[in-house]
């Protein structure tokens, strides 16, 4: 192999890329992260910050196990980041709720959980359906319309922007080279090394990890991989800072460590990151007030929309190239939840040069072929 400048080039400096880069640096790799400029579309700057387990894995039971693995690793991950950077990402795992505003909603919820649990090979989620009085003991401020909900003790949340900043601080401290405004145009493999062409010049590395979010769709085929994506827009409403009243995150509503309430969970097919559908924000806010009436006269200080990195079936893609050994894809929705896995499990596999199929085989993009031909 040629003496490349770097052992691994990570393409994309979002949460997935920096978590992976940090993990690679911990394994002793010389790492470069190639990222776009400040105007890039980044899910990592606009997400809802849940480290979420309940509901994950319907249709692919291994995804539930993979998510729980990350949820369980998250506490140690946050602690290590704090030791390395002095920054606290405010990870908490008090357990989280899905709340229902009608008997019909609660029944639908129970049904989903039942279908999830009935899948062969599913790990136990420990999710339980609670009636109104049980919920009220843990969330005393619920409104009169709340009939019950589901609770999963593994659910938690973090301060997501601080996580992003902390990971960038941590990779810098570990000597990772971060190159913003280095959009990768093409990737080729020559003489045993990868050549990544950018307008700023060529970067060479022994391996390449594609963590460019939805842009993996364009990049992956250059190294014999594929990443079929279906981007989707989500909107979030943020209130002024309030005294703590919500001890558990609810899937559509959470109170941050600094007091703001974030409301969101919308899905739209639009992929315009600058647009905002006011009606969607209004619907989100209206439902939030029905869940917690004390929010009725609270001030909204921000709203935003962001584009989700979404594979066509919603499950992660982890792959290594057969035609271009040393090229990997890491692509997923829920990059906050899975950050601990990317840093502590996937990065060491890439450092070793091979994915551990016993853990990630179900997440290969080859699954899309089965569907296309079957």
């Amino acid at each position: 192999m040629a003496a490349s400048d770097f052992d691994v080039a990570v393409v994309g400096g979002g949460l997935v890329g920096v978590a992976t880069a940090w993990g690679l640096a911990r394994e002793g790799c010389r790492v470069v992260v190639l990222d776009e400029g400040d105007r890039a579309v980044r899910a990592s700057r606009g997400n809802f910050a849940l480290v979420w387990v309940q509901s994950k894995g319907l249709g692919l039971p291994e995804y539930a196990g993979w998510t729980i693995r990350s949820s369980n690793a998250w506490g140690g991950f946050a602690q290590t980041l704090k030791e390395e950077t002095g920054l606290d990402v405010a990870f908490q795992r008090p357990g989280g709720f899905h709340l229902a505003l009608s008997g019909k909603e609660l029944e639908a919820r129970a049904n989903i959980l039942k279908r999830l649990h009935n899948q062969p090979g599913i790990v136990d989620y420990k999710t339980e359906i609670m009636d109104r009085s049980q919920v009220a003991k843990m969330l005393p401020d619920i409104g009169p319309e709340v009939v019950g909900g589901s609770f999963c003790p593994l659910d938690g949340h973090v301060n997501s922007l601080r996580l992003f900043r902390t990971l960038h601080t941590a990779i810098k401290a570990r000597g990772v080279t971060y190159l913003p405004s280095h959009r990768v145009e093409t990737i080729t493999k020559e003489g045993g090394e990868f050549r990544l062409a950018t307008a700023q010049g060529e970067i060479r590395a022994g391996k390449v990890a594609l963590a460019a979010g939805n842009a993996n769709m364009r990049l992956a085929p250059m190294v014999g991989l594929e990443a079929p994506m279906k981007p989707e827009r989500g909107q979030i409403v943020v209130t002024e800072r309030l005294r703590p009243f919500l001890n558990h995150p609810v899937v559509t509503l959470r109170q941050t460590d600094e007091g703001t309430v974030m409301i969101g969970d919308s899905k739209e097919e639009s992929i315009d990151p600058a647009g905002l559908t006011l009606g969607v924000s209004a619907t989100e806010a209206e439902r939030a007030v029905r869940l917690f009436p004390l929010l009725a006269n609270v001030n909204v200080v921000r709203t935003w929309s962001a584009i989700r990195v979404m594979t066509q079936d919603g499950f992660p893609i982890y792959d290594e190239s057969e035609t271009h050994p040393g090229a990997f894809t890491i692509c997923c929705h829920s990059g906050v939840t899975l950050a601990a896995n990317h840093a502590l499990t996937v990065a060491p596999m890439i450092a070793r040069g091979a994915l551990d199929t016993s853990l990630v085989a179900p997440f290969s993009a080859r699954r899309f072929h089965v569907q296309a031909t079957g």
Partner: protein
Amino acid sequence: MFKRLAETGAAVAITVDGRQIAARAGDTVAAALIAAGIDHCRTTPVSGAPRAPYCLMGVCFECLVTVDGVGSRQGCLVPVRDGMAVETQTGKREAGR
């Protein structure tokens, strides 16, 4: 530190944290607080730093106070009214107030 240029407008009585202060018709709550020599109207939610009205035109949100039981109103946009009860705010607002 501040003094009125002229004693225009009829006298209006409002309370701040229960204490009566003399305001003038046409004052905003923020102007009345400043004229009464009150040096801060709130402390910030995260660091607890004291804050006073600043831009006086609705932009900076430094002037947040509780007016007649409703929290986080911009004092510089609310005209005083006889009998109004203003409360200064400490840290984060309590939801429902």
